[in-house]
């Protein structure tokens, strides 16, 4: 196995572990964001004019 091939394999292994670690981090931090999102959606008013039209 050449040095380049070894580098690619090592990069992939580190990336995969790092990627999953980051995924779980976003999920844990997302708990707090989700609570805030649900609260703010519930409390937010309804803007009937904000319907995608350009007036």
């Amino acid at each position, binding site marked *: *196995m050449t040095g380049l*091939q070894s580098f690619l394999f090592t990069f992939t292994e580190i990336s*995969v572990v790092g990627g999953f670690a*980051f995924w779980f981090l976003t999920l844990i931090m*997302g708990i707090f964001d989700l609570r805030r*999102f649900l609260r703010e959606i519930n409390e937010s008013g*309804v803007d009937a004019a904000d319907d995608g039209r350009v007036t």
Partner: protein
Amino acid sequence: MTWIDWLVVGVVMAGLGVVGWRVQRMSRSVAHYTVAGRQLGMWLMMSSGMAGGIGLVSIVAMAQTGFNQGLSFIWITLFSMLFINIPLFGILGLGVMRYRATNVQTLPQYYEMRFSRSVRLFAGITLVIGGVLNMAVFPIVESHVLVAFLGLPETFVILGVTCKTVLVLLFILLAMAVYFAVMGGMVSVTVTEYLQSWIMAISLGALLYFVLARVGVARAEQNLVAVRGDSAFNPFAAGSLGIAFVFTVIAQNIVSKLAFPPSLQVTSSMRNPRIVRISTLLTSIFGISAGLAFVAFGIAALAMFGPDVPADPAASEIYQRALVGRMAAGVLPTVFMGLALSGFICASISTNDAYLLSWGSVLCNDVICPIRSKPYTPEEHIRALRWTIVGIAVFIFFFGVFYTPKESVLQFFYMTGAIFSGCGLITWFGLYWRRASAAGAWAALVLAVVLPVGWMLFRQFAPGAIDESWAKENRVQDWVTLGALVIPALAMVAVSLATGGTTKFVDYGERLREIQQREASAKEPV
């Protein structure tokens, strides 16, 4: 699959269904339904975005790349990450911050603000054609994976009628995606995607562990070197990706940042432009690496099943698309089988519901609404959005019934993606170039549609007219896709310069600075 596995699947699906039902009442306006009231925070966006971005079909596509081309794809990923995604989008916030500052719900809405109503209408039609074709292949490919994973027969008889298993699964997957998209729009999709993201992270992580434990990391790596040789590491080697494909991926990476409504709908849903930039930076660094895990599935499958594939191109495609399912079924123990099936279904639903919502929003808001003489009331508008989503799902079902694979999943994505890449071009020009005109936008949009659509129709309806092996060897399809990006960009510049005149350019850079000053004084958290 034992009864315990089916129990796991049942509990997960029922739980998601109940949550989707309960949050639907929170969608009380069109803005809630399409952009979640623009209340998405950074971590929620990233966690649910991981689920939305990783479809079962993209797992299959990446695994297929790993199976055939090994790690040669990494160079494109690395290049895109280091020289495009991190510096341009993550650090500078190029394009994405200005787009969020426009406050639009859908991409074509911006075209009416910047160019004209007719550009909005045409772009809306273009996006819907390209986008729906792009996602139409998702559920049918995913059904093939589930058939392989569960070891189901090709057909079965119910009440004397012979049914194709793959089509029944296609219907079920689509019905579940429609349920979540229709319920509460972006609010339901976000909340359920967040829960699906948990299931996917756990089940896909476990699957990767069991696969690598069975095959062995060292064995998989040595096998890849022995079987694929240089083409597994060098994207320009014979039998690998080819230079046209590499340039296409890089160009589409930049252009599609401002062309892909499902991603832009999430951008529009976020609280402010600063959050958009920070989350883009983090997902640029880490999000891509999760995709490499799926390339590893393909490399492991190569070690488990060997490199031989059926000689018939269509049969070969179906065989390769089913590899992940067959491999998972071969390595997972009880409970984890149920968990993996839940993860696969979640991966399918989370992408399909977000895409259905996005393409439905574009079709309703940017095609149907502009041609109606009388505006919808908010209630009528939400009802129209729901029926549009159902209509798209029906089309996708029939597409799946008649579709015969001619190319790899990844090539199909890039080819159909090229249809709406013209939209990305005019967004970039519109946001940054004062002289970009409506006539230039028209020229770019038309040319960006003609090339890939013409090519796709030619391939589907005149299969004998071109030597398949010659086309494959010379990468004709990749060159067509690349041409569909470069030629419209040149046309946009040439026609805009030729027509001249005043345009409706707004400097959103100036607006961004005002927003940032306001936020700095309010100290709004991410």
